[in-house]
């Protein structure tokens, strides 16, 4: 219960910064060592609510000092599994910041914690109260945690001893994330959190596709669905594969149909042009098809200029969103660039022709080497013509597509002149009933206007009577 703690717990303390002068002690951080780790354990291995302290506790610390600091939480429960560790671990950051007088920055072995003088004055003399609060919050928010035990360590030797184990754990998790693909699981997750604002949006989250907002990955979805299977994040049984390349599954289509109230019945997870995923409102990046080069450009919210097609982010983002499925425009989360299935139905990276420089730099590690310098940025091109030239010059794979198309067009050429003719007559059909003007001089003045601007305040049109 909150009253038992010598501090307040509230989301209002999230943004609290503890400056050097207000700090009682600094824990871990750039000038020391430490880590935070959540480990899934067997029920029998965890003593619920137990707190272990290894090394000096707060009351044994010197004011103004800096100490190494590690936090290990063992969690157990019927539904607890290793895949959930990272989700719980990330909440340690949020929850520690809820505590008044405690500042927690970064994650894993980069954690950096400060405790304020004021907190110590108010009675935070032991880490136990902090650990107990965190354990309470873990269990409140994530009820699949049936038992939790915390160990805080401030002893340098002990931390160093455990550091390798922690790092191995992080690496194993990263490998699992990287190597887990759509084909390895039989369950995807859906998220309807944004339906409160964007009613027909259907967000499908798979190992190879993060949510559009970038906030929820497959593991998050899995954790949330365990907490409350009827909540806003829920399991989508994958069903049968209709097309693996474009990422079409019977289960996803069925969910799309029911969640969009029948609006959409097909969603191809890794497709851009044909039945793409719906777009909500807060996608981080919008992709846009550029018909002139048959390629796809991407622009993110931080880019304030115009893309080669002359349009800024806001205009293109306005083409999609609100939970609509629009061919030719697609909102995504930045991490989707890192997906090995990135728009693979449409050619993947080979179809990408333009990105803002800072976005390209941000995801550069994930762009295949052979294509990286063939994708133009605002530093290389300014409009469609320069883009086209750039792509040709760099021999972007898209150029091969043009050659194919040109061949196809050549066969259709016979029909085009006939269509062009009526278009030329357009001006004649305009209802311009201007009085005939004498074309050659009957005296008077001849005025030649160049770069002139004529303003007409009011035109009165009357019927001829």
């Amino acid at each position, binding site marked *: 219960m909150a009253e038992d703690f010598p501090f307040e717990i509230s*989301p*209002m303390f999230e943004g609290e910064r503890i400056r050097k002068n207000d700090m009682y002690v600094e824990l871990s951080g750039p000038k020391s060592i430490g880590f935070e780790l959540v480990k899934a354990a067997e029920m029998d291995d965890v003593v619920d609510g137990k707190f272990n302290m290894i090394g000096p506790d707060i009351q044994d610390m010197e004011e103004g000092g800096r100490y190494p600091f590690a936090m290990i939480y063992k969690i157990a429960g019927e539904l607890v599994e290793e895949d959930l560790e990272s989700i719980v671990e990330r909440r340690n950051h949020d929850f520690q910041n809820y505590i008044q007088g405690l500042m927690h920055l970064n994650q894993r072995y980069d954690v950096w914690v400060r405790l304020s003088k004021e907190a110590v004055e108010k009675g935070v003399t032991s880490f136990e109260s902090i650990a107990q609060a965190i354990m309470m919050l873990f269990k409140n928010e994530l009820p699949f945690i049936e038992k939790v035990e915390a160990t805080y360590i401030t002893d340098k030797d002990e931390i160093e001893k455990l550091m390798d184990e922690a790092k191995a754990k992080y690496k194993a998790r990263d490998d699992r994330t990287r190597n887990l693909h759509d084909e390895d699981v039989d369950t995807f997750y859906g998220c309807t*959190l*944004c339906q409160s604002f964007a009613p027909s949006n259907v967000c499908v989250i798979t190992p190879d596709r993060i949510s559009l907002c970038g906030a929820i990955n497959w593991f998050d979805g899995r954790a949330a669905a365990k907490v*409350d299977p009827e909540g806003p994040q829920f399991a989508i049984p994958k069903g049968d594969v209709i097309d693996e390349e474009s990422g079409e599954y019977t289960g996803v289509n069925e969910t799309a149909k029911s969640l969009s109230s029948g609006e959409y019945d097909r969603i191809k997870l890794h497709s851009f042009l044909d039945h793409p995923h719906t777009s909500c409102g807060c996608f981080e990046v919008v992709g846009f098809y550029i018909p002139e080069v048959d390629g796809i450009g991407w622009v993110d919210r931080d880019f304030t200029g115009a893309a080669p097609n002359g349009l800024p982010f806001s205009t293109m983002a306005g083409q999609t969103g609100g939970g609509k499925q629009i061919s030719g425009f697609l909102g995504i989360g930045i991490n989707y660039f890192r997906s090995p299935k990135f728009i693979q139905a449409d050619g993947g990276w080979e179809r990408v022709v333009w990105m803002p420089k800072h976005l390209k730099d941000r995801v550069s590690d994930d762009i295949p080497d052979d294509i990286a310098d063939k994708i133009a940025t605002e530093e290389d091109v300014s409009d469609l013509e320069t883009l086209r030239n750039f792509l040709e010059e760099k021999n972007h794979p898209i150029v091969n597509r043009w050659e194919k198309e040109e061949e196809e067009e050549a066969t259709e050429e016979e029909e085009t002149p006939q269509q062009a003719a009526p278009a030329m007559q357009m001006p004649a059909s305009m209802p311009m009933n201007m009085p005939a003007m004498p074309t050659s001089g009957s005296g008077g003045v001849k005025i030649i*206007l160049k770069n002139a601007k004529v303003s007409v305040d009011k035109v009165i049109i009357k019927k001829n009577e």
Partner: protein
Amino acid sequence: MSELKTGTFSVSDLENVQINIGSIVGAIEKTAAEEGEVGPTVKPNISGLRDWDYKLLERYNPVYTPMCDQCCYCTFGTCDLTGNKEGACGINMEGHNAREFMLRVITGASAHSGHGRHLLHHLIDKYGADYPLKVGQTNIIAPNVQMVTGKKPETLGDLEGALSYVEEQLVQLLACVHVGQEGEAIDFESKAMHGGMLDHVGMEVSDIAQISCLEMPKADENAPLSEIGMGTIDSEKPVLLVIGHNVAGVTNIIDYMEDHDLTDKMELCGLCCTALDMTRYRTEGGDVPKAKVVGTLAKELKMIRSGVPDVIVVDEQCVRADVLREARELMMPVITTNDKIMYGLPDRSEDDIEDIIDDLKSGRDDGALILDFEKLGEVAPRLTQEMSKIRKEKGVVSLPTEEEFNELTSRCVHCLTCELECPTNLPISDAMTAAEEGDLRPFEILHDKCVACGRCEQACPKDIPVLNVIEKASQRVIREERGKVRVGRGQISDPEIREEGVNLVMGTTPGIIAMVGCSNYPDGTKDLYRIADEMLRRNYIVLMSGCSAMDLGMYQNDDGETLYEKYPAKFQKGNLINVGSCVSNSHITAATIKVAAIFAQRNITGNYEEIADYILNRVGAVGVAWGAYSQKASSIGTGCNRLGIPVILGPHGSKYRRALIGKPYEEDKWKVLDARNGETMDIPPAPEFLLTTAETIDEMMPMLAKNCIRPSDNNMGRMIKLTHYIELSEKYLGIMPDDWYKYVRNETDLPLARREEFLKKLEQEYGWDIDWNKKKIVSGPTSKLDVSAQPTNVERLCKEA
């Protein structure tokens, strides 16, 4: 070349010729189809949105507290309306009070729209009707205009249509004030809402026109900071003071000063929104503001009485009626520049500049009307330099000397007449006593709270110039009045709204607090600081505008920082934004409209009702007009109300004599339809009111958090909002609110850190059924949690309808 004659010409060889046609009379107006999908209410007339107003008014009932029991509108009267009596024309008390409120609203709307019309004429004249509108990164250049008039303006000239519509509607509304027109209060209420809506269109036209032409920041999160406060003005230099709301003529002054290298040689400073807009002029891209802000209307008389200004230029709105009379005493020539305020001065618009300057500096005239801005641009700065010398030579002093001050304080007989007359009943008498004993602190405290209306002086039987006494006593604090205000940034950009969308949807941004309105605070400017700081620390987005935006910048914390320096200015949780001047308030409603356009892809064009319905049920925004005094404040607030945004007024706001109150105990009022299937669903009382007053900050704080709750909140959003509501109630009122449980739909809505405690309360105090093994609520809540539900008050928006 032959001589030019009348007759018919032939024109040939045209190259790069562009022909603009201003308007076409007789042809069919451009069909709405060109605007894309269009909703059902393009340019609604008075009855156009009446159904929507009735829906709102059925849940949010008007409550009147009449200022006066009589009606004296016509010569049948005066009619006594007490005791359910009707007047000679048949009007009753409710009807008359609703009419009075409507009149207030359309007066305010006319002030903004009249301002917009003047500005638009001026800017079209200067830049051309085809000058493109540029407001920053957006797809929707003018959300209010597009939503109400069904048109997407792209050029200055396009704005004329919107303004013509507003003007026509305002005439229709004003016609209803006449004897023998509308008779029922509810339709006056609907008309007031109409006026409020028009106001936001008029304001938007004004502001986007000036943003586009005058190189003002365009949705810029890095808009620079400007100096503010009487203490920032260097009185050794010649000082030119401008007062009002319309920056058009002032831009000529700034240009002249720059062209003639006068910027560092004299002080250009302003009061009210003209001051804010002066700092926006040509600061696009982060340039240094070209003028200083003195402060709000509350500083007007104080600044004049200080004797510091050498010349005063006024334009329109919120300018004291006695500026000329006050300035005359102190040899400050007054130049009026707008036909809304002319003070009986001779029109010198056509006269020679040297003659005008001569007449003013010699004292032959104590002011001039100059409607020609080119002329104004030269006269004002030149005259200021001349007057500075003359006034210094003559030794013009305004405030009493030490000796006079002592005499004045001892002259006071402590009859308390001044205190009774004071709008905030400030303790003047005690301060006089303390000053007599050499303690000036009580006066210094009064100085911050005093709105400088001057009524105390009129009331004093001993003819003490009370205001001068207060100012003399407060010289020390006035010198320290040096704050910072963020230059108005204009709109919120589309990308910002998209980015922040995650937080608004997830609930990590618990709401948007718009602190708008004037400087008629009950307890000084520190109030604003307290409200903003508390809500910013809780990660709300705080938007400022107009006088509130200025006053917030006046107060510094212990580190000498204003909140503008402490918090960044992006549209993001925990950020503090100044949208700009009074007319920039339209960008606040515009931001909520954009949320509907961007997140739900709702068509906003000519689609007012659907958008207002979306905002009422989904967008957790609350307006606070803590110091509202003007008619404009009532029209801004009423425009928010029609759009589904609740507004809280400070204690002086009760003098508007009307509120729109929901009754949480009337359960049948708190139901909406689920647009997926048309079924009725129960909702909590959220928002609880559309317009109400709070007596104290302590009372208001929890109201703010509570009224950011919306029926469509997902569980994360509700949990955070409820946490803040309960915490603010405990912090400021010392109690758990008595209605917190009404906002709980299941256990995930409960504040995380106190979930178990609250589950116990629900079981013990409210009889809810709790499954303690799973820590789940089994039964009890009246509303259900379903994030996919689509709450609406409009039946036609339901799928099955």
